[in-house]
């Protein structure tokens, strides 16, 4: 890998100031993805701003919400007893991701920047618009078993690989960021973006902004939740399709519901139409199947991933059924 400088930031303000000075500087937290990308010459920053010393690791239960520091480790959040109690969906999704070793290193903020696992992105000899704009998309017409069925474009059919983000999208989380222009808040569902003609941009974060925390508003999704991850092996594999379900049931009637999918789009894919359809209905397999079919509107496959058109609605039905039966 290329030689680089690494400096340790002492405050979020100094981290932002430091990164502003360098065109190819990047923040590094757990490094579970960035270091791999640097080793493979996919990413080659001149400078890394190490933010691990910042005071952003706390999980705080505030009035009406929980605030999770951007540097909280994935395992720390997954195993936090209050998170398990109040936001079990998030704990389930985190535990489904990566391996225990990686979860010990990976942070909440870093997880949101996980790069796609598209093989063409990782191999610098291959065409990839995300890595090298205007070089073409290797996955279209190539190996695309893992790839998107929703919201893809002619430039990119890659998917976002995170499990955690699927749960956070379902839970209406917000992202708090700090940048050269000050602090702001981004809705989690607006944080990641669709590829369009600029697949090199994964998020709506502006240049040099730093995530400081993620907030989840209080909810009633404490019991009938499920994170179903369908993958090629039982552990340590990325989702082919995943479904995050949170149900608020009263006497088997769906009072409130959240649904999101992973492994199907360039961002965590929230199923709002299916959610609206389910609200107020009584739990039944038939209703779940109808919701799943609604969710599949506009789906498009690319060859190797044709099976996702069947798998995705089946997974939605299965996840809803499991959540409802808890």
């Amino acid at each position, binding site marked *: *890998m*290329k*030689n680089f400088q690494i400096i340790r930031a002492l405050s979020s303000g100094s981290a932002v100031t430091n990164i502003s000075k360098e065109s190819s500087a990047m923040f590094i937290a757990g490094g579970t993805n960035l270091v791999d990308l640097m080793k493979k*010459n996919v990413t080659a920053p001149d400078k890394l701003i190490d933010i691990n010393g910042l005071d952003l690791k706390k999980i705080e239960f505030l009035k009406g919400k929980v605030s999770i520091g951007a540097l909280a480790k994935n395992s720390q959040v997954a195993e936090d007893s209050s998170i398990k109690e109040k936001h079990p969906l998030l704990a389930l999704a985190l535990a489904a991701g990566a391996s225990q070793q990686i979860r010990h290193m990976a942070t909440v903020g870093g997880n949101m920047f996980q790069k796609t*696992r598209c*093989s*063409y992105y*990782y*191999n610098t*000899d*291959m065409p990839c618009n995300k890595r090298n704009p205007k070089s073409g998309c*290797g996955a279209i*017409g*190539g*190996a695309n*078993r893992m790839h998107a069925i929703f919201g893809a474009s002619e430039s990119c059919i890659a998917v976002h690989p995170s499990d955690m983000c699927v749960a956070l999208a379902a839970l209406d989380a917000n992202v708090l960021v700090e940048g050269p222009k000050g602090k702001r808040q981004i809705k989690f569902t607006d944080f990641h973006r669709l590829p369009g003609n600029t697949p090199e941009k994964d998020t709506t974060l502006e240049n040099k902004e730093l995530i400081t925390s993620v907030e989840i508003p209080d909810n009633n999704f404490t019991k009938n939740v499920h994170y179903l991850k*369908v993958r*090629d*092996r*039982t*552990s*340590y*594999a*990325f989702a*082919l399709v995943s479904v995050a379900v949170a149900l608020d049931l009263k006497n088997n009637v769906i009072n409130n519901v959240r649904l999101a999918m992973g492994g199907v789009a360039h961002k965590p894919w929230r199923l709002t139409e299916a959610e609206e359809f389910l609200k107020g209905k009584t739990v039944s397999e038939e209703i779940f199947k109808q919701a799943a079919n609604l969710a599949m509107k506009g*789906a*498009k*496959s690319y060859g190797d991933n*044709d*099976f996702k*058109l*069947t*798998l995705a609605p*089946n*997974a939605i*039905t*299965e996840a809803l059924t499991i959540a409802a039966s808890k």
Partner: protein
Amino acid sequence: MSKTSNINRVDGFAKVTGSATYSAEYKTPGVVYACLVGSTIAKGRIKTIDTKKAEWAPGVLAVITHLNVDKPVGYQKAKDKHNFGQPLQIFKDDSVLYYDQPIALVIADTFERMQYAASLIKADYFKEEHSTELKKAADKEKKVDTDKGNDYHRGIQDGYKNAEVILEAEYTIPTEVHNPMELANIIAKWEGNKPILYTKSQGVEGTRKSVAGVFGIQAEDVEVHSEYLGGAFGMGLHTWPYEIAALIGAKKLNRPVKLVLHREQMFTNVGFRPYTIQKMGLGATKAGKLTGLTHEAVAMTSSYEDFMEGTVNMSRFIYDCENVSTRYRIIPLDTCTPIWMRGPGEATGSFALECAMDEMAYKLNLDPIEFRKLNYAEKDLEQNKPWSSKYLLECYEGGMERIGWKNRKNEPGSVKEGNWLVGYGMGTGTFGCYRSPTSVKAKFLPDGNLVLQCSVNDMGPGTATMMTAIGAEITGLPVENVIIEMGKSGLPKGPTQGGSATTSSVGSAVHDSCNLLVSKALELATQNPTFKGIAITDLTFANGLIAAKNDNSKSIALTSLLAENKLEGLEVENLSKGAEEAKKYSIYSFSVHFVKVLVNPNLGKIRLAHVVSCADIGTVINQKTSAGQMYGGAVGGIGMGLMEALEIDHRFGRPINNNFADYHVPVNADIEKQEVFFVNKKDPISNPMGTKGLGETALVGMAPAIANAVFNATGKRVRDLPITLDKIIETVKV
């Protein structure tokens, strides 16, 4: 059960504490660091290669390409390209024969500087059209006139076609890679014209010969160390271009050079199990007697070597069948040469054969085990010889009992547990038992310890433990008193570790040498006043003490005997070979794998609820290491069945999942319950211990067991491995 049949792995402590030294870990003063830069095209010629930036990068000591290499003298006299074991001649010229073929060697003073310099090398190519897809290269199919390549016919050619009930089916297995945890690695250095290698090899003597051939020197002048291997599975059976590259670099710089392949290079440069398409034709009477069996295989090889394996061979002898035909063809593709991978040939062949047997059982409405029993081979019809021993029926019975076969129903999808469809399946495995001439030196030291020396190495099965156990059994010494020296040249010559033949070859040699050594010690004792007038046959040797059988008061410690005779030790070096008698028999190991799967048809999810592997491997020398091998082999078979496939983007002729995140092998959570079981009956013919082989047959037959269980659960017959979930769920294109 003998006292040594359950001893701990003698090198276990060294391995788990990190004190075992693997090739790249040898402390070598002045060592420098090298890596290989690979081609980015699959076929063509190098137009230009820009090495200037790398050469000028800090710490770089050399950049070697085809333009500046000092070609080893052996390159000139290389045999024609159809010679086995004639690997790619690295840096020989500008040709590119496969994707990621090494085109440059970069050597620097530190690992980091070497890596950085390597990233600066850029090449331009004259591209040529490549061919990497077996299914689209049928026109290049060729028959090779060798034992493996020749057609075989017994009875009527393709006689299955005349049967009452006929089954024809095609099966595919993709390319699979060995990828042991320990990467391919070497430290190479020269002392004058004599190379010294610390390298990952399954055969010290084979590596010596290959290296000698390339550099035009004598094998005896090549020093090879390969004491510990972190797995190999067959990839260490070849001397690969990276090893030659390190030697070229070390010679140029006159310094020790360390080269460790990247994980990605492990998928492209050190062999693999070849992509193979098989056609089966089975014919049977309505009552279930096989009357004809035809097995055809077409497998990939490289453009520069004809690699072949025994893919169709099992079909010739495993069942009682009058009319058998086998054909085997290869197709050269623009890839690295394949190399034997655990259960080579048979693992691939058994997938087709044992799935076809299952399909035929369904056609005949017979239980798959019943169908096999109806066609049980009482002798080897291929060689027309009796079996040395065969306890296959015991494997069937043991497996049926453990897996709960009685709960199986022949009707697919008819058994459920909750929402899960339940399926049971089985597959038979076999592998020949071989024995190579092997020399072992056995030596009693003055302190009473026994040293056993052999150049054989141990890629993981527990060879040192096996040698210890046999040595302790024969000499009556406690296992703690046995010292093993192995895995390096200069020791008495042992075989390459492969073909499940190590225990048969080396174990027999240990057995013979130790017997001779004990006789030598007893002979010496007869000359001692203690045993005056006592015949050698009336002496015993146990626990380091020589004693008269009929008089307890007369004994002498071996250590005292050696001291009294002023001996520095007592030694025997002996070459052991198989007995002529063995040639009259057909000697095979047998295994049967049983699988219970739970399938969620909506998600395509296959759970391995229970896996049972039973084997007839003759005498079990060590329960622990044997069980370990069987578990590991079975897991390898599970990977083959459910996950493993090197995916190639044929537009570019290069793999797209050449890393451990994307190339899946099973994890612990994938297998919910696993058991192994050995018949453990001595083979009267194979060798003095009565062992057969284990390493290969531990894997052979697992993949079809899974495919058959999936069919039993779902009614879906998946004939192309691996059985990923997309092949289970109904796919509709929108």
